[in-house]
């Protein structure tokens, strides 16, 4: 018995230490808010709804060409074959277009959810998906507040499809395909700080054109894609009920309780075991 208990405690100590240390190390450089990520500012007041970015995106990522004319009257969603869509809304200020794609959160829920580190927040800003690590559990889809990761349900070797801000292009110094080719300059690529000050400038210079709100500045703890709009974002089908704090913060309390329970429970249970070991009398009145 003693040998076993010793062996058990040894295992427990190592596991506990590994868990505690692992979490600490991971928590330390989690100051993503201090890094100046790259992102894109989308100005829906400038977007003319040409859908050119959809074609550029499909081209750049080897996806089938979109056919927006066919399903235009509907509000479309991004899908496993469309990493971005531009939708048209009839709003209080007339026709307004809005482009949807991954928001590239500063502290992404999908990355925190991923147990294989397949979803990865790069230092540059894009959130990318790595096929060699992913096991297809789709927990990223459960966790993403914007419902962005899409799964190829009809493939025996399915991939997660989502905008990766053209990470491969960024590495060679190019811009994301959509931002590089927008004929109306509705998409501006830059560092998040630059984009925020540019957006503020546009709002101040043209207060009648824009609502005084920069979508993405605080949503889900801040995102790398930022949105300017002439109308309330609710009218454009954007999720306006999201929390301002980051989504991974929601699981922090639970994850922090793990090392505590891992150390205290065995101690407590061993204690009770020792205390009741020689109890044979009270089994009758325990019922």
């Amino acid at each position: 018995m003693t040998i076993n208990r010793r062996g058990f405690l040894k295992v427990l100590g190592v596991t506990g230490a590994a868990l505690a240390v692992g979490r600490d190390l991971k928590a330390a450089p989690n100051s993503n808010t201090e890094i100046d990520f790259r992102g894109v500012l989308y100005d829906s007041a400038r977007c003319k709804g040409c859908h050119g970015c959809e074609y550029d995106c499909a081209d750049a990522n080897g996806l089938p060409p979109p056919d927006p004319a066919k399903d235009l009257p509907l509000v479309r969603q991004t899908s496993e074959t469309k990493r971005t869509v531009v939708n048209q809304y009839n709003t209080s200020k007339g026709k307004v277009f809005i482009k949807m794609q991954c928001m590239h959160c500063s502290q992404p829920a999908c990355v925190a959810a991923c147990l294989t580190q397949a979803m990865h927040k790069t230092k540059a800003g894009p959130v990318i998906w790595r096929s060699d690590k992913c096991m297809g559990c789709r927990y990223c889809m459960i966790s993403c507040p914007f419902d962005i990761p899409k799964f190829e349900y009809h493939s025996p070797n399915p991939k997660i499809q989502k905008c990766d801000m053209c990470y491969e292009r960024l590495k060679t110094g190019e811009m994301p395909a959509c931002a590089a080719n927008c004929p109306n300059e509705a998409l501006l690529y830059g560092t998040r700080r630059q984009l925020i000050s540019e957006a503020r400038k546009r709002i101040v210079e043209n207060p009648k054109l824009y609502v005084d709100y920069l979508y993405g500045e605080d949503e889900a703890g801040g995102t790398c894609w930022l949105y300017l709009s002439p109308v309330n974002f609710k009218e454009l089908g954007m999720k306006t009920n999201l929390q301002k704090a980051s989504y991974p913060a929601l699981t922090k309390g639970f994850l922090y309780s793990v090392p505590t329970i891992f150390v205290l429970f065995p101690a407590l249970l061993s204690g009770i075991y020792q205390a009741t070991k020689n109890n044979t009398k009270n089994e009758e009145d325990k019922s």
Partner: protein
Amino acid sequence: MNPTYTSVTDHDGKSIWKFLLSELKPKGKIFTPFNIISVPIIILGLVLIVIRFWKGIGAITNLTQEVPWGLWIGFDVVTGVAFAGGAYVVTFMVYILNMKKYHSIVRVTVLNGFLAYVFYAGALLLDLGRPWNVINPIIGNNFGVNSVLFLVAWHFLLYMVAQLIEFSPAIAEWLGARRIHKILSGMTIAAVIFGITLSTLHQSGLGALYLMAKEKIHPLWYSEFIPIMFFVSSVFAGLSMVIFEGSITHKVFSSQISDKDHRAGNKIIPGLSKICAGTMFAYFFLQLLVFIHEKHWDLLNTPMGYWYLLEMFGFVLLPMILFYYSYRRNNILMIRVAAILTMLGVILNRLNVTVIGFRWDAAIHYVPSWMEVVVTLTVIFTEIWIFRWVINRMPVLRDSPSWASSDNR
């Protein structure tokens, strides 16, 4: 004692392969109602599983981009693991609290729990889009330690090992391996302590999985207390399963159970009933506190609100009262009714969080396809087959051989 069993003990590792081969043969009747129903379903399920790996998950499921986890996760894994919670509760009572009265149900409960975990983790593999990468979070090249799912996956794995250790003396008795039996029995307490700790964490962890889906789950079911709710409800979910499973095994495998254990069984059930009533009261109170704290009074007068009230009053409060009442009256039949009601309530609760209330506002609702249901049944039936195979061979329900009793506590 069973005559075939005594002959087995004489082997003591000599012609072990011959013995194992002979044990693989079926025992008992082949054309039982259960076999006639389960075999065609299992065959159909296996065909569907082949199609799933050949054409993709979408070929046999109705999963959508908004609802990526359906019946296979919400029922097989999340609900199944809650029902398997009986193992940690009973081992806690018997080994830690030294409540010897419950000793006769430890083995069958642990076996049930172990098989549940093996099969539900197996069902999880069917749901993985890229199952060949499942080793990534295990072998250490890709540790996503910030993920609740990482924690749950590891705990599943470790807990299966702990349960196997807890059950292993029965295997040693079956094989007649006396020395190994002594070693394995000595490891029980450590495995139990480790197992209870792991269970606490992953029962609640299954709830914590859904914490980031804050806006996607109906507000009546989402709160930051989901992990605690899942943990507390796993106590009575597991014990109700023990009562339910016990009432079936005592009938089906009646010949294996000694008179002493039969009599003990009638004392065990009221005891479990009382514990169920107590934990359900705590659970109901917790739910009430959370409800008042979240201030969702306006949501009660909606279809989802009625559904919530049905779950809380019809499947928590009612079985709780039944449990308490029939414990006082010592009414075994009523306790079984309460156990079934409780199990329905747990299924309802888990599905409400994971499937029914998940994206309740989505344009396209997810309803599982018949093929998903068949695969789920295949998993359950196969588990029962293995369970029966083990019960018929190892000393799970029947008494251990006399040589083993000095090792067993």
